[in-house]
């Protein structure tokens, strides 16, 4: 029996890992709505230091507070990435130079290598839906909240030609943190880029 994709939120010891509780259900709904990928109806939350983390091809991390891995977490996420898994880390603060942003950049550099801008013509922007201008802007960016910037690029750590760690300062965690039922009020589903991230993680 082929196992379904399970959306995994990573629990880390240092911060508020559970700050976007509705996001998993929303992206699960989008995957079921647009793709034929078999998706488990519920997501899971898994400690980064747990061996079970290695069962998940994509691990989502977010938060507002200083971000730091314990040694066990660091070792395990390295193992996940070496085995083909991917981390998607999103700053829930929608600002730059904030505590999550600064500490996450440092921790990612310590654990893997420094983040670099991901070109806006990278294949993740056309893996399922097409985003010709790179990462879609969030309403927080367009409303001028946070740092009053529209961040033009995502950042990434590459593992060969594959994204191993995808980092966003765009606050998709706020943008996608709502009940899937509310999508009927939108003309364009703003979670479509989330589908691209998951499909990329499942196919690269």
């Amino acid at each position, binding site marked *: 029996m082929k196992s*379904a994709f399970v959306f995994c939120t990573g629990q880390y010891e240092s911060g508020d890992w559970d700050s976007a509780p509705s996001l998993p259900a929303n992206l699960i709904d989008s995957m079921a709505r647009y793709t034929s990928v078999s998706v488990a109806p519920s997501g899971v939350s898994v400690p980064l230091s747990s061996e079970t983390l290695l069962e998940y*091809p994509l691990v989502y991390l977010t938060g507002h507070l200083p971000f730091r891995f314990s040694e066990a977490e660091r070792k395990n996420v390295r193992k996940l990435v070496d085995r083909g898994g991917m981390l998607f880390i999103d700053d829930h603060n929608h600002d730059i130079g904030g505590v999550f942003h600064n500490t996450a950049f440092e921790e990612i550099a310590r654990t893997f290598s420094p983040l670099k801008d991901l070109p806006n013509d990278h294949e993740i922007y056309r893996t399922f839906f097409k985003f010709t201008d790179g990462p879609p802007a969030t309403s927080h960016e367009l409303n001028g909240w946070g740092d009053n910037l529209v961040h033009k690029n995502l950042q990434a750590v590459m593992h060969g030609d594959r994204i191993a760690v995808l980092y966003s300062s765009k606050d998709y965690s706020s943008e996608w943190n709502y009940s899937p039922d509310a999508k009927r009020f939108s003309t364009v589903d703003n979670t479509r880029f989330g589908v691209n991230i998951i499909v990329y993680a499942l196919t690269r």
Partner: protein
Amino acid sequence: MLWQTLRAETGSPARLISKRGLDASALSEWSKMPGASAAIQLRLDGAPSGLERAWLRALAAAGSTISWSGDLAPLMLDVRPRAAPAGGTTVLVGAPRGSSVAVGDEIGAVDTLTTKGTGASIALRAGPSRIYARSRGTTASTSPADSVLLRKVMVIGSAGWESKFVVAALEEEGWKVAAFIRVAPGVDVTQGSLAAIDTARYSAVVALDSAASLYAARIAEFVRTGGGLLLAPGAALLDGRS
């Protein structure tokens, strides 16, 4: 010349020669026996070499009767190039259960195998030009066949951990992989340069699940023309004629 040397004179009574073992001097002596064919009975404790067998055949053709007895170890040896990007050779030996078989190449001893059932095998990273196997006085030797020509492997499956790992594992072994990964009806994520599924381009197809149904007829034709196919359970249920 050899035939004339060994040819027996007709009408002479055959002499009985009984000998343990075989050596060049005995063969030479029997070849030069004047005037009579012989009934040569050999008691062997090891398989004669190729030269000795040819010599005995010549004696038999000259009129001598050759018979042998002995507890010779039956031994089979086969050597095949490995169908893997890393290359190498698989050595297969056949011998009675529990036999100790020493395997070597032109350089020296490689390993000693103990047969379980009636055979044993060993994978060698190198591709030696000649392989030997020895067991209880019997020696077999052979040369590997020509190397295998390897092409890409095509993986067809739905998006997920399984298809991703299959592709990664094949690539880790050195295979060049092309992949059709089904994401949604009419939407495939492809990897590598894809081409028609035929034996000129692919060595094998790995079908993981129902995503292969779209290509079932082409895969069936690929197999009929000699292509390899590995079916995961989800794909094994597909009708190849559809």
